[in-house]
């Protein structure tokens, strides 16, 4: 996106029925996007055991109470372990690939490899889940933290890749040439010049991978075992037969992780530079 302000904004200057219709549509779409999250947050303060409108006797107690339920604490820790593994693996495999391909974007084989790397995001997650389930059962890895992390990496690594390509593209190669002129080899130039200069991009990519893994549940549904069940998978089974403020409180903790991740990404590289958007 550019800094030029589209003059189309003039269209909306005058207050008239066009604008009214436009604002009505905008309100509806923002409502559809945000209201499920808002309602979860609101319901977590409800004092009643079972959720029914109106939410009365507002209280914070569910936030403390769920911390005493071993099942939720265990699944939360499982989610953190898988997310950390996913973050490490995605960054280790995707960053060098992004570095290599960002410098050769125009070339035929580089273009093909770039699109191959993003294939897994196009696949329905159920298919990735089934395929990995069969493969990992064969080699006896099914149900381990590592298994879930592999599944999540297939989803996170392409997004880390897209983000890092955008980051490396903005990086001026002149600094590497300067380092090489001063006697650094490829690896030294990468470690001492490139990495420090793209550090903020790497931090954002880390948060991206971490957040994706803590929120994903379809692949995890196929690959988990009772001891490695992640929080979203447990939530998936729990919400079918129970609507309770306790579950809402757990959900708010998860929403908090996302909001904090987005906040950090916004501080470091700007929210509009996340992999999905224009530049990718």
């Amino acid at each position, binding site marked *: 996106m550019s800094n030029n302000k589209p003059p189309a904004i003039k269209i909306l200057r005058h207050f008239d029925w066009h604008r009214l219709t436009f604002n009505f549509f905008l309100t509806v779409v923002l409502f559809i996007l945000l209201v499920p999250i808002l309602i979860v947050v609101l*319901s977590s303060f409800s004092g009643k055991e079972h959720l029914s409108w109106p939410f009365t006797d507002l209280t914070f107690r569910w936030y403390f109470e769920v911390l005493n339920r071993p099942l939720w604490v265990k699944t939360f820790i499982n989610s953190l372990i898988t997310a950390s593994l996913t973050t490490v693996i995605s960054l280790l495999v995707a960053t060098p690939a992004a570095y290599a391909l960002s410098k*050769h974007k125009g070339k035929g084989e580089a273009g093909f490899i770039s699109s191959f790397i993003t294939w897994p995001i196009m696949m329905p997650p159920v298919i990735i889940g*089934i395929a990995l389930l069969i493969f990992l059962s064969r080699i006896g890895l099914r149900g381990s933290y590592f298994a879930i992390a592999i599944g999540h990496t297939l989803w996170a690594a392409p997004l880390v890749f897209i983000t890092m390509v955008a980051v490396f593209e903005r990086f001026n190669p002149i600094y590497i040439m300067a380092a090489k002129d001063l006697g650094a080899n490829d690896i030294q130039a990468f470690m001492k010049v490139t990495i420090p200069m793209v550090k903020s991009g790497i931090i954002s990519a880390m948060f991206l991978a971490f957040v994706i893994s803590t*929120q994903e*549940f379809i692949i995890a549904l196929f690959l988990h075992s009772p001891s490695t069940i992640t929080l979203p998978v447990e939530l998936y089974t729990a919400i079918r037969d129970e609507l309770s403020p306790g579950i809402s409180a757990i959900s708010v903790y998860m929403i908090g992780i996302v909001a904090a991740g987005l906040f950090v990404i916004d501080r470091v590289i700007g929210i509009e530079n996340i992999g999905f958007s224009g530049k990718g």
Partner: protein
Amino acid sequence: MRSATESIKMSYPEGFSMGTITSFKKNYKYLLPAIPMLLFLIIFFVYPSVIMVKYSFNKSLLYGEIENTFTFENYINFFTDPFYLKVVWRSFVLGFWVTAITIPFGYVLAYAMWTSKGLKRKLLYFCILLPLFTNLVIRLYGWRILLSPMGPINGILKNLGFTDSGFSMIYTKPAVVIGLVSECAPYYVLILFSVLTLVNPRYIDAAYDLGAGKIKTFFQIIWPLSLPGVVSGGMLTFIWSFGAFATPTILGKPIHWTPAIHAERQILSIRDWPFGTAIGMSLVVIVLVILFIQSRLTPKVHSQRT
């Protein structure tokens, strides 16, 4: 230090990059750092997919045992069973409704982002990215609370005197559709927004200068230029609704189940792996056919910026 690097920069022509040097040598050494990523994808994505295809041609015996043969039986069973044909057809209809609603509503949001700037644009970004990254289960849980017989919507309707017992809104097709709209809309908006940013503002100025009104400018200039975004975003919405898994299971009844859910049931509950993988592969093939048709239909995206 700074002046030194700037002087280096100035001594090279515009658009110079490392790539232009190495490309003359015609070697593929630059691809070395990409090898871990490629290996990872080959081992954990390509190879498992190949095994999955192989399973779909095997035959299942009793108690989840699998006979290693080559048969089209699973595919024939899937595509000739009226039950599964109905499942596929219903998913198509579901995808149609979701796409038909997402396209105009998402367009308004993408347009609002495009015409805003500064804090407002950041805020709209946040409104899209927060639901996009928040666990789908949590968002569906929100819809469940909202639509339940004891939930806020029914509560308010009761207070206003529209109903005594409350409407049953959950486990209906509109509930599944609205859940899918809120699942797909963020992606659609981001794709469309990225295409809108490529529209050259001068064309719009020109339209105004030539006396076109707001509506005319929109339908004759902005809409045609943003069509590639509408088509590719709309296709993504359709494919995801068609392959949806979580929303129909949580907000719908078994009658709303998609092929993806039936595949999961066959694999995890019934343990008929050959049939489950065959359903999964059929889903992938249908998606690929849709993508192929789309690539034929989509007008090419190109920047109109000068």
